[in-house]
């Protein structure tokens, strides 16, 4: 089965006394490509992290493929995470491992400890061939044996995407995929992500700071502000002033600490 269905039912999250999300209800269908957009602290990342159960809502329910995350045991959650790729904002690759090892780590959840020890220390030919193919897909096959911290930001981004692909996930959750890239590379990375998702029928949910990129590449945008949905639909159906309103910060928001 390809693609994962995500569902938020009146989800609320309180964080240090403040509402990070407030009564959010969303349904994301298998194979859909969606971006959460909004200013810093609007709840984009929180929403994303709830989708794989990294954080739990304080109100409401999150369902993945109709299963309630709240009912899942630790083992079931671990199993679920092997099927959902998550690319963090800071990528969070192991800096002094080689690119191949960082990609191979994508299947740690499917192997036992000693099996994974063998793979990480001495991957076999089949594994390396598969990693090489995926790296070719993301455009950096020649970097397979390079140390990850020797790569540029854009290349590391691709390693993180390659890991999620090697994971054979049915859904990709991507937190601010282009926050550390220059505009040309940002377009490239988003183009790559959305086309990979469409090609493999994966559900792709990204949180995006850059509204213009989001409008260009994502067929569905969900606007969040102060933990509430301001709009949800295809970019051409959303009024320009709605975008403007989303980013108009009040003075107190400008001075507030980022969260």
């Amino acid at each position, binding site marked *: 089965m390809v693609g994962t269905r995500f569902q938020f039912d009146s989800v609320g999250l309180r964080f240090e006394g403040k509402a990070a999300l407030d009564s959010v209800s969303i349904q994301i269908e298998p194979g859909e490509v969606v971006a959460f957009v909004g200013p810093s602290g609007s709840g984009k990342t929180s929403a994303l992290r709830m989708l*794989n159960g*990294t954080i739990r809502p304080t109100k409401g329910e999150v369902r993945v493929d109709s299963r309630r995350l709240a009912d899942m*045991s*630790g*083992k079931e*959650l*671990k*199993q*679920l*995470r*092997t099927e959902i*790729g*998550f690319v*963090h904002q*800071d*990528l*969070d*690759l*192991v*800096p*002094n*491992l080689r690119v191949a*090892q960082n990609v191979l*780590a*994508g*299947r*740690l*959840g*499917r192997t036992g*400890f000693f099996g*994974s*020890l063998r793979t*990480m220390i001495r991957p076999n030919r089949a594994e390396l061939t598969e990693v090489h193919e995926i790296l070719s897909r993301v455009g950096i096959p020649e970097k397979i044996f390079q140390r990850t911290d020797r790569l540029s930001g854009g290349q590391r981004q691709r390693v993180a995407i390659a*890991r999620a692909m090697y*994971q054979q996930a049915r859904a990709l959750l991507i937190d601010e995929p282009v926050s550390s890239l220059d505009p040309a590379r940002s377009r490239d990375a988003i183009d790559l992500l959305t086309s990979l998702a469409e090609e493999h029928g994966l559900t792709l949910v990204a949180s995006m700071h850059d509204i213009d990129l989001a409008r260009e590449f994502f067929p569905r945008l969900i606007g969040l502000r102060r933990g509430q949905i301001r709009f949800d639909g295809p970019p051409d159906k959303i009024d320009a002033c709605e975008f403007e309103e989303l980013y108009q910060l009040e003075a107190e928001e400008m001075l507030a600490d980022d969260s």
Partner: protein
Amino acid sequence: MTASLPTRPSSFGTRSKLVLAIAAACIWAIWQLELDFGTLFPDGRRLQILQEFFAATISPDLSTEVLDQLASGVWNTIAYATAAMALALVAGVILGFFASTAWWSGEPNYAADSTSVTHLRRKICAAIYVLARLTIALFRSIHELFWAVIFLVALGLNPMSGVIAIAIPYACILAKVFAEMIDEAPREAAVALRGVGASPMQMYCFGLVPQAVPDMTAYAFYRFECTLRSAAILGFFGLETLGYFIRLAFEETLYGQCWTFLYALLALVIAADWWSGAFRRSFVS
């Protein structure tokens, strides 16, 4: 209207008090021991010994006989140091694992909400951790010279006594430092591995340990230099390392010979330092 100036922090704060306390402790220690700096400038026979000893710095004994002893002394010193370090490394890595908190505890969002670590398991892990820390503290607090005395009495004058005497405290020092290095490694990469369904053990081994390995290697090399010195010193107890020959030469007032061995020890430590530096650079780049 401008706001009033916030209260200036006291210039006699905790840090100033600490510096004063340390200075007071130093003065008290010197007074307590009735240190006489005049003894640094001896006269008569003592001054003569001192002069003879340092005069020999420019005339080390390079006779064949001495060079033969030197070769055997250097070889034995390296052998003792290497054997002791090998044992210390294995024990240090194992003990260091149990003495680190990263694989079972740590910040929220790490293993704390990893549902696969149950409450009971965390308690057991905490008990193992405390036990490992106590073991390390206990064995580390006793110097290798003291261990040497114990093992020479218990096992007799043989290589094993010397190697074990060095290996025990070194294993504990390595374990303590390794554990801290692993615990201080940035945890984001390990947390990201949980995102792909990795177990806490996999997160530890593939997310944290690799980041600590360069520091751990550098530290192990530094400790190897220390084992060279320790192995040499154990020669004073009769094991045939450089210290053995230094002691014999010194007792027979053959200061030229003494300097030959001291220079060899110096060369050995410098070589180890250079080698570890070169290795470290190749490891990091």
